[in-house]
């Protein structure tokens, strides 16, 4: 039975990956409708957008929910230090879920809807773009540790008590369900896209400590980015997140404020196999927020404030990121 479920997961992963290969997006479709944006040129950059906004909630419980993420960027709109700026506003509405397959295996998935807007100092016409973004699917294996049997009084315990530590390993893919518009890479911030058009591998390692009141959760994720149909490949991305939380229980609900750090490091973008200058970067955020659990619902809010950043040779500046979510526990 256990094996069967594993294979089911395997087949599922395979089907999702291959079906999206078959779902061809017309590579020529992109250029026509956005031709009028062409006269404004700048540098080429990277995907700072919402593909990598974490996978779950603090409690690591199974759920289905909705998440809203708001982020903005300021980008240099030209090649000079006194060039005007453009401002990118990224609103993401995300359906996300974590579904158990077995006791130790679960799947997480997300499907974002992106609503993007860009304004220009130069007075150029505002750009707006919306549509479904890139869905991600991940399979997770959870290692739950058990307490050591130091007490001889229970020689044959029926169930060993769980320790407070757990490890998770996740493998998955980000699928090119969002449309990538090649013309838009002709800007300082090529993260202004609803999708990257590429199939990316996601590898994740997580560690959780959950005490009665205090907990800690950390996750390290590597995004191995694939090349899209336009021979454009976003730089591989490493994301790290560490969050400490404190649970305040009430009669029938609980409030869990949290505080942490998160960061991303991006490699250079490649096009036609050549690296593009000033397209790598890194950012470190301080994060804080809270979750409120009542009944089957979890309501959460999260803010990420950039502490230090150097994105695209300093040409792109990320502002704070806010997210709100409502999850229904499964």
């Amino acid at each position, binding site marked *: 039975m256990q094996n069967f479920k594993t294979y089911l997961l395997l087949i599922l992963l*395979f089907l999702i990956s291959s079906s999206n290969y078959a779902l061809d997006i017309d590579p020529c479709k992109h250029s026509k409708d956005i031709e009028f944006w062409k006269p404004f*040129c700048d540098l080429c950059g990277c995907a700072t957008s919402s593909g990598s906004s974490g996978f779950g909630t603090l409690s690591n419980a199974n759920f289905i929910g909705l998440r809203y993420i708001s982020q903005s960027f300021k980008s240099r709109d030209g090649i000079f230090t006194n060039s005007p700026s453009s401002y990118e506003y990224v609103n993401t509405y995300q359906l996300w879920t974590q579904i158990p397959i077995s006791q130790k295996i679960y799947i997480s998935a997300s499907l974002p809807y992106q609503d993007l807007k860009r304004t220009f100092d130069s007075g150029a016409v505002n750009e707006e773009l919306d549509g479904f973004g890139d869905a991600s699917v991940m399979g997770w294996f959870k290692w739950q540790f058990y307490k050591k049997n130091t007490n001889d009084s229970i020689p044959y315990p029926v169930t060993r008590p769980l320790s407070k530590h757990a490890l998770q390993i996740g493998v998955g893919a980000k699928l090119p369900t969002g449309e990538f518009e090649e013309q838009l890479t002709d800007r300082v911030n090529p993260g202004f896209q609803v999708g990257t058009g590429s199939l990316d591998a996601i590898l994740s390692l997580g560690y959780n400590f959950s005490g009665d009141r205090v907990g800690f959760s950390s996750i390290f994720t590597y995004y191995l980015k694939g090349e899209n149909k336009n021979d454009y490949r976003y730089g591989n991305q490493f994301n790290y997140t560490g969050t400490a939380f404190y649970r305040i229980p009430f009669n029938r609900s609980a409030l869990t404020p949290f505080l942490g750090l998160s960061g991303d490091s991006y490699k250079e973008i490649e096009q*036609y196999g050549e690296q593009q200058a000033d397209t790598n970067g890194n950012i470190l955020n301080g994060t804080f927020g809270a979750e409120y659990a009542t009944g089957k619902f979890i309501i959460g809010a999260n803010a990420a404030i950039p502490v230090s950043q150097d994105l695209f040779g300093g040409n792109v500046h990320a502002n704070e990121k806010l997210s709100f979510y409502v999850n229904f526990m499964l």
Partner: protein
Amino acid sequence: MKITNFFTILLLSVTILSCSSDDEGTESLDGQSGNLVIKFDNGVGDQDFIFDVSYNKSSEESYKLSSVKYLVSNIELTNSDGTTFLYPVDDNAFIVDEADANAAGEIWITLENVPAADYTDISFGVGIDQERFLKGADGQGDLLEIAQEKGMLWSWATGFRFIRLDGSFSNSTITDEALNIHMGSVGTSLDNYREVSLELPNTVLVREDATPELHVKADISVVFDGETSVVLADGYNQVHTDEVTTPIIANNIMGMFSVHHVHNE
């Protein structure tokens, strides 16, 4: 057992993800051609150039300009296999005028029917070479009229102005004195035509259905502070046909251009 399953998933996922398409690169480009856009973007050092803004130069002088124009010709591209393509000579002379810049401050030159290829280098001349000049007034095509309109021509016998900067300069004792750099060759007696060769930071892929863009940064400050730093008050505020000052400005201009980046489609 669990771990085995897990690694099976991992292996399979990686296998799926490594299935990228490698079927490009073998197509023949023979007979294909496309367009190439060259964008000229004038600046002063790392600042975008703006008319009538005062810029400091060496020797404690400053200058303001109300016109910035230069003449570019003989654009030639070098293919990755080493062969070169010279854009048809009759259409291969352009006046880059800051006053013609778009909202982003760029002046565009569009080359049409460029053979599809992967280009790695570009070279062009600043000004008009002797060969073209010797074709006479009738042999210049549209350029003659455009140059006249743009104030880039002296009398025909003297020839074209290769660069034209008009404005004023100041130092500790002089305020807003006239500055006119009208440099060119003088007939056939003084040849100030210069060639510039630039390596491209990324390969430019010209294709039937792709118009790459080449973003050239032109640093106006190099006209005065290039290979030679000139003192405007020492006669370099009026550079016209002089056989000493014009070659110095011409040599400085050779170092004014760089390819900031390219865009492939």
